[in-house]
């Protein structure tokens, strides 16, 4: 009894233990908060839980002395629980009053994603509008992109020299926009190589990209009236290992000495390994990627580089597909909207001192 009194005198129990169902979750989670005890010798708190209709308290966790909240993520949905927090020092343990009962509930909408939801709706509407308009109005204007002249010129040179054209559609999967844009451009490049009769080499690093690229090239050769010139060794898979792929393509570049190298798609650190080897063989190089970190290297080592969005625009421009052109329009207007929002919010924040950053 005396001992117990000493304990009670030295350490105050945690107070104000509050519990609530965690919002915006898939259920099974309860948030417990409490007021910390002031004593410096406390090393942490033990969190205890009791089910309704049960006598037993189970220990959930031990948290540090600065913690004043804990999320119980092992609660059963719709089952009421209550919690108790125990302040622990090296030698003693002082429990709080038990909290009230609460149960966890799963939710159907995560309200923290509301801005993204609104954004998705607005942007979708913009794009659908412009894609629809593109179907009616065949003359949507897209400004010419400088790099595209280079494509023609480079292919012409390959023909003159009677050497091959190398086309690397990046190292990523079909899920990457850059890969899809790249395959659209590959289709056009393949039509030209088919027409000029220059060899085409397309090494790939993803099995699906390989399958699709092969079909794309085959179709282009048919469209160019040269189905006989297509053979199964134009497009091939090398490996999905980044640097093994780079080693193999470097080998191809130095042995086959293509007159033109296209490095278009998604690239990582291997970008400069490929681009600089290609430059050393004297090939004309056209690169295009939306991998921002790799753009500086393509810019320095290639003759022409499609920067980020230019790649998508090029793929729309070169194919003259109205639906793709419509999407580029949609992108332009979305960017205008973003710029407008940045300016409007800044004005609101500076002039009226509104807390705009807390709105989303």
């Amino acid at each position, binding site marked *: 009894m005396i001992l117990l009194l000493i304990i009670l005198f030295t350490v105050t129990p945690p107070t104000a233990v509050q519990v609530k169902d965690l919002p915006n979750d898939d259920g099974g989670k309860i948030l417990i908060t409490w007021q910390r005890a002031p004593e410096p010798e406390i090393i942490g708190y033990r969190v205890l839980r009791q089910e309704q209709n049960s006598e037993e308290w189970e220990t959930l966790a031990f948290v540090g002395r600065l913690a004043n909240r804990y999320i119980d993520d092992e609660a059963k949905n719709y089952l009421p629980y209550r919690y108790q927090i125990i302040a622990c020092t090296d030698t003693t343990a002082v429990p709080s009053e038990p909290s009230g009962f609460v149960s966890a509930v799963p939710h159907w909408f995560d309200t923290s994603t509301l801005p*993204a939801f609104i954004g998705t709706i607005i942007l979708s509407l913009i794009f659908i509008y412009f894609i629809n308009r593109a179907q009616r109005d065949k003359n949507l204007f897209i400004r010419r992109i400088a790099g595209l002249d280079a494509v023609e010129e480079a292919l012409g040179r390959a023909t003159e020299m009677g050497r091959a054209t190398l086309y690397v559609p990046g190292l990523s999967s*079909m899920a990457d926009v850059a890969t899809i844009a790249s395959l659209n451009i590959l289709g056009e490049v393949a039509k030209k190589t088919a027409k000029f009769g220059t060899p085409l080499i397309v090494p790939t690093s993803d099995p699906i990209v390989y399958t699709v690229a092969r079909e794309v090239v085959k179709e282009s050769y048919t469209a160019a009236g040269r189905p006989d010139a297509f053979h199964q060794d134009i497009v091939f898979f090398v490996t*999905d290992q980044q640097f093994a792929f780079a080693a193999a393509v470097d080998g191809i570049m130095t042995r086959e000495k293509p007159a033109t190298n296209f490095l278009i798609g998604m690239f990582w650190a291997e970008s400069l390994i490929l681009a600089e080897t290609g430059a050393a063989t004297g090939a004309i190089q056209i690169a295009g990627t939306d991998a921002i*970190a790799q753009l500086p290297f393509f810019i320095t080592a290639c003759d022409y580089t499609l920067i980020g969005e230019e790649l998508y625009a090029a793929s729309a421009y070169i194919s003259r597909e109205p639906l793709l052109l419509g999407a580029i329009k949609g992108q332009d207007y979305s960017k205008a909207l*973003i710029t407008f929002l940045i300016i409007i919010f800044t004005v609101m924040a500076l002039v009226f001192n509104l807390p705009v950053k807390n709105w989303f």
Partner: protein
Amino acid sequence: MNIATDPWIWIGAILTLAIFSFLYKENPFYRIAEHLYVGIANGYAITFYWHRVLVPSLFDRVGAQTTPLSTKIWLIAIAIIGALYFTRFIPRISWLVRIPIAIVLGYASGASIPRAIDAEIIRQLKATIITRHSFANWQAGIWAVIILLGVIATVSYFFFSTERKGILKPLSYTGIIFIMIGFGASFGYTVMARISLFIGRLQFLLGDWLGLIK
């Protein structure tokens, strides 16, 4: 000098030198290393997918007694869809290869839509907005203004709907200036990391292999 006796160190060192020899010119040593590398990488990929994906996610679960029948049927169905990739080799039904591609591609596309907006567009938009708080010290405030102008200029560089005329002309030119400064900075900043990689390889060759440095 304390040269290595472990055969694997020797193999690693010889392969390292074979790759470096490419800097001089393409040669048989590089060619061997390159072809070996592609072979091993594919062999390793087979191993990885077998042991880390197919066995634990498919075979073990289909084979286990504890797995409910519904899960087994579900898993076998997925396996059949995956096996549709093989129809590419059968011309008459080769279009079936589009089904597994559609599942993977559709899901990835759908999942990337809200993420592109939430994690990138909204977050970056928010970071670009200037508030009075940005001027907590005048320097930070000026930098925030420069960033805002730079962002708008860069965005305008990628405006394709009209020719670069009027306000767009100076704005997009400012954009390319920002872009070039940014690219230069990324380039210069990366040099140190790449030299570190080379130092790492030299430490392997001179240290682990030849024992010249400890």
